């Protein structure tokens, strides 16, 4: 195996890792800020891909342009979901959120099944699937776009979290909720905004996943597992950690696929997560809440 082939694998793993991180950011936000496990995270991501599919079949535009509608739509879905359903579940305890979102995931899957059937779909067009050359490395353009989008979204989220009053309030609530209330922050108003933000990011993830791979109504839970992996690998509550966690998972996925075959990809990835969690239970960046 020549150096060009190795470089191709490594770059492919990195690009795929960027996409995995993109799937993880939203999960990182809901787990880190709202402290709830959104089991329907992957299904909501796939929902975004289907919304984009509908947009694109109505207006035949470049796939990424559909984000102009998908992102605000998913922000609204996230906001409403938290405000109407999950805030109430959360008041009864975190395990209620798990149960409610588990049911929500099943509902979304079946709704998509009724509306769109079980067929594989993709948002990709010929243009995005064209190969590009980075030196000796040859990869489809869409994967480079995935990675670039992941970096841009990470930078935007860091900006929001670090330099806006809303971002500070989002970090303050999980750090010390009673104190947050005393200075006039109402967690039950912050949570819907955080979930809206998480789902806006999830919309980007869904559209890019849908442009990179095929998708079908029941594929959501696979991506939930990947999102969960990136977050716990990187360290809870650190978005940079989620990015790094994504890269690790992408590399392991691609390299193990090359060495052991596609059957063992997911298993190898989960083993690596397991080992890292044993060695460093708080993740690679030993995160606290943002």
């Amino acid at each position, binding site marked *: 195996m020549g150096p060009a082939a190795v470089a191709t694998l490594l770059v492919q793993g990195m690009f795929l890792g960027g996409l995995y991180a993109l799937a993880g950011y939203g999960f990182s936000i809901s787990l880190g800020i709202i402290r709830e496990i959104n089991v329907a995270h992957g299904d909501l991501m796939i929902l975004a891909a289907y919304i984009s599919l509908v947009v694109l079949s109505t207006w035949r535009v470049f796939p990424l342009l559909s984000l102009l509608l998908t992102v605000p739509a998913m922000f609204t879905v996230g906001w409403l979901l938290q405000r109407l359903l999950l805030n109430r579940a959360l008041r009864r305890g975190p395990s209620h959120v798990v149960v409610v979102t588990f049911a929500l995931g099943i509902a979304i899957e079946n709704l998509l099944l009724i509306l769109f059937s079980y067929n594989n779909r993709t948002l990709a067009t010929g243009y995005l699937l064209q190969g590009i050359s980075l030196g000796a490395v040859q990869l489809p353009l869409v994967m480079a776009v995935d990675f670039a989008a992941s970096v841009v979204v990470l930078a935007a989220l860091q900006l929001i979290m670090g330099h806006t*009053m809303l971002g*500070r309030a989002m*970090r303050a609530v999980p750090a*010390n909720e009673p*104190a947050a209330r005393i*200075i006039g*922050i*109402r967690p039950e108003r912050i949570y819907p905004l955080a979930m809206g933000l998480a789902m806006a990011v999830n919309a980007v993830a869904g559209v890019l996943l849908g442009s990179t791979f095929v998708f079908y109504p029941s594929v959501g839970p696979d991506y939930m597992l990947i999102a969960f992996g990136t977050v716990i690998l990187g360290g809870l509550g650190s978005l940079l950690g989620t990015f790094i966690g994504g890269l690790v998972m992408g590399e392991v996925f691609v390299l193990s696929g090359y060495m052991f075959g596609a059957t063992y990809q997911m298993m190898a990835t989960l083993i690596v997560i397991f080992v890292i969690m044993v060695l460093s239970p708080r993740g690679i960046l030993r995160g606290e*809440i943002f």
Partner: protein
Amino acid sequence: MLLALKSVEAGYGDLRVLRDVSMDVGEGELVALIGPNGAGKSTLFKVICGVIKPDSGRIYFMGRDITGLPPERICRMGIALVPEGRGLFPNLSVRDNLELGLYGIPRAPVKERLDFVYSIFPVLRERSRQRAGSLSGGEQQMLAVGRALMGAPRLLILDEPSSGLAPIVVDRLYESVRKLTDRMSIIIGEQNIKRPTSIAHRWYVIENGRIVMEGSAKRPAKDLQTAYFGVGTD
């Protein structure tokens, strides 16, 4: 009167913590609220700030009835509480903690307020990029007070500011607090008597949720000590 409490009763569920509490604070006044652990000081402060709703009684601030208003409205009207245990966000930077003192106050002059707080507690400027959790106890208390000052409150409430601090650090903190009285009214809740009554214009003693004694700077603290402990010791 800047703040007036009229027969406030409050508690948690069936547990009645405050009984018939009436007190007032004038413009520019420094008032000490003395009481042992569990007397109801923190509950009283949370009631004033709207975090706990009183069961009965009224609270007036600048002549307006604020009873039952949500905390964010009361904060914006100019009451800032430095809670017991400081209420900092340990993983956020000093600067972020300070800026959160302006939460919900649109178009606040951030730079000006930061400079004001830094002028009172210069060490916070040096540490502005550090995590709040990495500060010493005294610095953390300064940060907690500094955050409350960001919103330029009319009334500053300090709940046991001296707890867990070395005496010399407490002296410096009290000196800074005393200097603030020309800008705002202040309530200090403490368990000990000597220090707060030495700088306060007036004081109240709270026990088992009732105001059992009150007095002014003219009534010597020695008197209070005798009444409070039964003996004249500190």
